[in-house]
């Protein structure tokens, strides 16, 4: 079937836009539903605090919504922008951009729902701490949104970079790999970051005096959790900005696509696992403030071991890009 390139460009634009919105809607909805569930639970425990709880639920849900709003923006851009281009690379760019934002919104959407839910429950237990709980919820959710912002940045760079000077093969695979690396890589870190923020809100409600160490270790734990999303962004940037010499073999293209998949999928597990670790550490610091230094140490060591497979993925991705 021989069609002109503009036909394929439109096909890719619609497919990319559909995937961006379809995938992007999943995470935020689940996270917001979780928040609503916890809010209801909280109101049933303490109906007099229902005003604060309700407000907090809406604010938390708004942050979770932002990930899917990014996806909506990318979908609208893909559907309605004219892409006058005679290169097959544009086809790959549009698909990759859509898939990147679609996957990238999943983790952050679900993750931002967790601290909002915990803040609602916390306000039922300790209405006096409402202000501090809101602060921790906002800080934690904001950090949790960063992977979806990485995905948005990658999507936009893909859409607005001029790839016309590059050889079609293997750059087509580099473009697809770049989208997958950032998009898939954002899932684990978004979820993990949310788990840590949830524990900090719960800990502040349980033990208001521990707010200092709990917040500090939340930020430290979240920072480590976000590292795999940063690796994904790094691989994306390398794939987008390095010029690859023209090559007709399928092998050199598959190496680049494989690099993107490797980093993208490989970033999921460590992101979630380190989130579990930090969540547990923060919970127990709230229960036992005196053990803060031991808990921090074991959290960091444990997260480093969990990071190991993420590092292996990064290494293999770099080998696929630079050595093969």
């Amino acid at each position: 079937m021989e069609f002109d390139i503009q036909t394929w460009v439109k096909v890719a634009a619609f497919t990319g836009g559909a995937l961006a919105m379809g995938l992007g809607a999943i995470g935020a909805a689940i996270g917001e539903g979780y928040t609503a569930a916890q809010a209801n639970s909280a109101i049933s425990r303490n109906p007099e605090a229902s005003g604060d709880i309700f407000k907090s639920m809406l604010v938390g849900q708004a942050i979770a919504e932002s990930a899917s709003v990014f996806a909506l923006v990318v979908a609208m851009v893909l559907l309605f922008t004219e892409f006058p281009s005679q290169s097959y690379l544009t086809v790959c760019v549009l698909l990759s951009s859509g898939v990147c934002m679609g996957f990238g919104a999943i983790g952050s959407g679900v993750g931002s729902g967790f601290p909002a839910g915990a803040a609602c429950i916390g306000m039922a237990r300790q209405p006096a701490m409402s202000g501090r709980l809101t602060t921790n919820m906002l800080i934690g959710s904001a950090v949790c949104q960063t992977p979806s912002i990485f995905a948005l940045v990658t999507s936009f760079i893909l859409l607005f970079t001029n790839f016309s000077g590059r050889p079609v093969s293997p750059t087509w695979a580099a473009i697809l790999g770049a989208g997958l690396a950032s998009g898939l890589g954002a899932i684990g870190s978004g979820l993990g970051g949310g788990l840590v923020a949830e524990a900090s809100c719960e800990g502040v409600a349980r033990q208001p005096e521990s707010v200092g160490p709990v917040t500090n270790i939340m930020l430290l734990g979240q920072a480590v959790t976000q590292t795999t999303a940063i690796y994904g962004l790094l691989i994306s940037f390398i794939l987008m900005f390095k010029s690859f010499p023209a090559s007709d073999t399928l092998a050199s293209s598959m190496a680049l696509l494989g690099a993107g998949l490797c980093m993208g999928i490989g970033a999921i597990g460590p992101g979630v696992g380190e989130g579990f670790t930090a969540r547990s550490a923060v919970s127990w610091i709230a229960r036992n403030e005196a053990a803060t230094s031991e808990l921090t140490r074991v959290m960091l060591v444990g997260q480093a071991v969990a990071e190991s497979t993420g590092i292996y993925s990064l290494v293999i991705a770099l080998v696929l890009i630079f050595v093969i």
Partner: protein
Amino acid sequence: MAIEGADIIKAAAFLGAGLSMGLGAIGPGVGEGMAAAKACEAIGRNPSEAGLLTRTMLVGQAVSESTGIYSLVISLLLLFVV
């Protein structure tokens, strides 16, 4: 089988509309279900607050629905506008 260029564009738009709404329906389903489940539990623990709890559940579910509406909008755009 000779397929026209315009035909395959329409084909992609329709497939995309399906994917967009199909995938987009997952999240609100799960999220609203969780909200309703907890609402049942909450009312079970505290039946006198049933009105307030039901209202909260509906508002929370409406926010969760919004992403599903975005997907519906993109689907309809792909079906009828582009």
